[in-house]
C-alpha cells in the first residue's frame, strides 16, 4: 500500500499566527492595489468595447499594429500577443468608441480591419473572433455578475450555516470569504483579465473551498463525539492530520485536471485555469490554517452553554478545563462498529 502523509502528527494550528500574517499581508497588498491602481482588469464583456483576435500569416510586431491602429483613429487600443508570435488580440475599450458604436457608427472592428488590410495586405491575416459589446449590455452583465457572486456566496454560506452548528458555520463561512478575498487579490496583483468565465472560476472555488472545510469539520465533529477529553486544539490538529492524505490526494487530482487546462486548453481558457489553480491552493491552505484556528477562536470566545448541548449537536471545549458533569451523561450516538448491514 502506497501511503503519503499517513499517520502524521503535525501541529498545524501552532502556525496559525504566521499563516494569518501571510494571508492578511497578501489581502492587504491586493486591497492597496485596488485603492491606488483602480479596479480589476475587466474584460470587454463588462466594460463594453471591441475585442478582436487576429492571426497573421507571419510573425508581426505588436508595435506596428499599434501604430497602424493609432493612425486609423482607434486610439488607446490594447494589443497583446496571444499565444504564438503571429496571434494578437486587439482590445478597444475606449469609452468614446463604445459610445459611437452604440450610436450605430461604423464599427470599430470594421475600422480595425480596414486599417490592417491597408497596412499588411488583404490576405495577411484572419480574424478569429470579434466581440463587440455595447455599454448598456456591459453594465447589465457587470450587474448580473455581481448579483451572481453575492447570491452564490449567500447560498453557500446559508448552506454551511444550516449544515453545521453555528460555531462551525461561522468559521466555515469566514474561511470561505477569506478564500474569495485572497483570490481577488491574486487576480488584481497578477492583472488577470476578469471575464465571465473567470467569475465562474471564482464561484466554483467558492463551492470547492467550502467543501474542504466541510470535510475537516466533519472529522472534527466525529472526533469530538468519540473523544470527550482532549481539548479542541488537539482534536482539530488530529482531524487535520487524519484528513491530510485525502486533502493531498484530492487536490492532486483536481490540480492535475486544472494544470491540464492551463497548459493544453489554449489561450482562451488560461485565465480561468490560472485562477482555478491558485484557488485550489488557497482552499487547501484556508481549510487548515484559517477555518480551524477560527473555530478555535470562536469556541474560546463563546464557550458552550447547556442550551447548546440540548440541541443534540456536537459539543466541544475550547480549553483544557474540567469537563462539566452534564456532558458526561450518555447521549445517543451513532453506532461506531455497526458496519455490517
Amino acid at each position: 500500500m502506497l501511503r503519503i502523509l499517513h499517520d502524521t502528527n503535525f501541529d498545524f494550528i501552532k502556525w496559525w499566527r504566521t499563516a494569518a500574517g501571510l494571508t492578511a499581508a497578501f489581502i492587504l497588498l491586493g486591497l492597496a492595489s485596488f485603492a491606488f491602481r483602480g479596479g480589476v482588469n475587466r474584460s470587454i464583456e463588462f466594460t463594453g468595447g471591441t475585442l478582436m483576435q487576429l492571426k497573421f500569416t507571419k510573425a508581426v510586431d505588436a508595435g506596428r499594429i499599434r501604430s497602424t491602429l493609432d493612425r486609423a483613429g482607434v486610439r488607446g487600443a490594447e494589443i497583446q500577443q496571444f499565444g504564438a508570435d503571429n496571434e494578437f488580440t486587439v482590445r478597444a475599450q475606449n469609452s468614446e468608441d463604445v459610445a459611437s458604436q452604440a450610436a450605430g457608427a461604423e464599427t470599430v472592428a470594421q475600422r480595425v480591419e480596414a486599417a490592417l488590410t491597408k497596412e499588411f495586405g488583404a490576405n495577411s491575416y484572419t480574424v478569429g473572433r470579434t466581440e463587440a459589446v455595447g455599454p448598456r449590455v456591459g453594465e447589465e452583465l457587470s450587474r448580473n455578475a455581481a448579483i451572481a457572486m453575492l447570491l452564490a456566496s449567500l447560498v453557500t454560506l446559508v448552506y454551511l450555516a444550516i449544515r453545521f452548528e453555528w460555531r462551525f458555520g461561522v468559521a466555515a463561512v469566514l474561511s470561505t470569504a477569506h478564500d474569495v478575498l485572497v483570490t481577488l487579490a491574486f487576480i488584481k496583483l497578477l492583472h488577470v483579465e476578469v471575464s465571465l468565465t473567470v467569475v465562474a472560476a471564482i464561484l466554483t472555488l467558492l463551492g470547492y473551498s467550502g467543501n474542504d472545510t466541510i470535510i475537516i469539520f466533519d472529522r472534527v465533529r466525529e472526533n469530538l463525539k468519540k473523544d470527550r477529553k482532549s481539548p479542541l486544539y488537539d482534536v482539530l490538529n488530529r482531524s487535520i492530520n487524519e484528513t491530510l492524505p485525502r486533502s493531498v490526494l484530492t487536490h492532486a487530482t483536481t490540480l492535475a485536471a486544472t494544470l491540464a487546462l492551463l497548459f493544453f486548453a489554449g489561450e482562451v481558457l488560461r485565465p480561468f485555469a490560472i485562477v482555478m489553480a491558485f484557488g485550489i491552493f488557497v482552499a487547501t491552505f484556508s481549510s487548515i490554517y484559517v477555518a480551524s484556528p477560527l473555530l478555535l477562536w470562536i469556541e474560546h470566545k463563546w464557550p458552550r452553554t447547556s442550551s447548546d448541548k440540548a440541541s443534540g449537536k456536537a459539543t466541544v471545549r475550547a480549553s483544557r478545563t474540567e469537563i462539566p458533569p452534564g456532558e458526561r451523561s450518555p447521549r445517543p450516538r451513532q453506532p461506531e462498529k455497526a458496519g455490517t448491514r
Partner: protein
Amino acid sequence: MSNLKYRVLLIVALVAASLWSLFPRKVVERVKRGDTYVFDTVTRVPLKRGLDLQGGMHLALEIDESKGTVADKSEALDRAIKVVRTRIDEFGVAEPVVQKSGTDQIIVELPGIDDPERAMGVVQKSAFLEFQITDKTSALEKALPRFDAILKEAGAAVGVAAAGDTAKKGEKGLQELFTPGKDSAAKASNDSTKKDSLALTPGGAFSKLIQQGQFPGEYFVAEKDVPTLQRYLDLPAIKAAIPPGKVLRWGSETQSLGATQYRPIYLLDSRPIITGEYLVGAKPNQVPLEGTVVEFTLNNEGGRRFRAETAKHIRDYMAIVLDQRVMGRPPVIQGAIGTRGQITMGQGRSLQEAQDLALVLRAGALPVPLKVAEVRNIGASLGQDSIRNGIRALIIAVALVVLIMVVYYRFSGVLSVIALGLYVMYTAAMLAYFNAVLTLPGLAGFVLSVGIAVDANVLIFERIREELARGKTVRTSIDEGFRHALTAIIDTSVTTILTAAVLYQYGTGPVQGFAVTLIAGITASLFTAIFVVRTFYLLWLSRSRGAQTLSI
C-alpha cells in the same frame, strides 16, 4: 445477492441508455470541404456545440429609440422577433436561435456564419417599403428662400463652395446618362433640363448646395456637400419649414459625372400610394439595362389599389422608398400597374445584395428599428482549435487522474478509474439527452469535474484504509468507508450544484454551458463514485468470499 443483480442491471441499463443517446446520427451542419465551409449531412455524435466551438455569430439587438420613442416596447419586440425569425430562416442557417431576452432585447444566434456584416445587415434592415409620387408642384423651389433665410438667421457657416461650375460642366453628361430612353421620360427630362440647368436660386446657403434634377421633385447634391445638407436638414427649424404633406428622401446611390459624384434627393408626397404590407413575393434578377433588380409581386388587394393609384398618376414619377431611401431612380408611370413591379438597385450591385433585399422584403418590415447592442463572432477555425485543445486537455486530465489513482490505490484505484470512464460517458450522455450546449467553458467544466469526480472516491478509499488499519474486516471496512464518507460527499455536491445553478441563472451562453456541464458532471459523479464503485466492491466480495486483504 438479488440486490447485487439489480445494481449491476441498473448500471448496465444506464450504459445502454448512454450509448443510445450518444450514438452517432445524421445531422445537417457546416463542414469544411477543402477551404470552404458548406452545409452537408454528416453522421456524428449528437452533442450540440456552442457558438464558441463551432464558430458563428451571436447578436443582441435592442430597440433603437434615437429616432423616436416606442410606446409598447414589449409588444413591438414580439413582432420584431417574428420578422427577424422569418428573415433568419430564409437566410439559411442550420440551427438559428432567435429569442427574447429580458423585456427589451432580442438574442440572435447564427451558427456557422462567416460574413457577419451581411448577417447583421439582413437582421437589422427595417425593410419598410413605400411607393411615393414625386412632387410636381415645385414646392421645394418655393420653400428654398425660406430655408436660406432660416440658415442665415441661424448664422450657419456657408463655407461650402457652390458646385455651379462642375454642375454646368456635367450637365451634358447628366443628360446623356440619365435619359431613361422611354419617350415620355425623355421628354420630361428634356423639359426639366431645359427649364433650368443652373443652381436654383443663387446665393442662399441652402440653395447653393442643391440643383434641379431631370424631372419634377428630383434634385442633385454634390457628394461632398451631402453631410452639410444633411446637417441643415436636421435643424428643427428647417424640418418645420418643409412644405406640408411632403418629405425629402435621399437616393440610394450616387451618379458620377466626370470627377464629381452627385447624390439625388427627392421631394415626395408624404402619403405613400401603397406600402410593402401587400407584398407577397420578391426575387432578385439581373436585367441588361437596369442592372440588378428585385422583382416583386403584390397580393390581389394590393394589386387593385396599386392599379387604381397608378392610374391616377400616369406620367408622374414614382419613387420606391425602402427604409426612407429612394431605391434606384424613380420610374415614370406609363400606365396602370397591377400586381407586379421591380425595384432597381443599379449597375454594379451584386446579385447577393438583391437576394438579401428580396429576402427582407418577403419577411416583412420591422415594426421598430433595431440596433446591435452586442456582437460576438467566432471563426469556424478558431472553434475547431478550441475543440481540439479542449479534448486534448480532457484526455491529459483523465490520464493524469488515472495515473494518480491507479498508482496510489492499486486495485481500488482501477475500480474508480472504470467508474470514471462510466462517469465521462454518463455525463456526455446527459448533455446529449437534455440537448445541452457544449461550450468552451463547458469543456473546462468537464475537465475540472473529472478531477472533482474522483474526490468522492478518494474520500471513501481513505476512510476504508482507516477502518482497515483499525483491524476491521474487509467487508466491514468497505461498508464503514462508504457510510462515513457519504455526508461529506453530499455536502460537496450540494454546494457546487447550488453555485452552478446561480451561474446558470445569471450567466451568458458560454458560462451557462459551464454551469450545465458542472451540474451534469456532479450528478453523474455522485452515482458513479458511490453506487458504481460500491457495486464493483460487492461484485469483488461475492467472487472472492472471505478475502482477507484489499488492495487499496
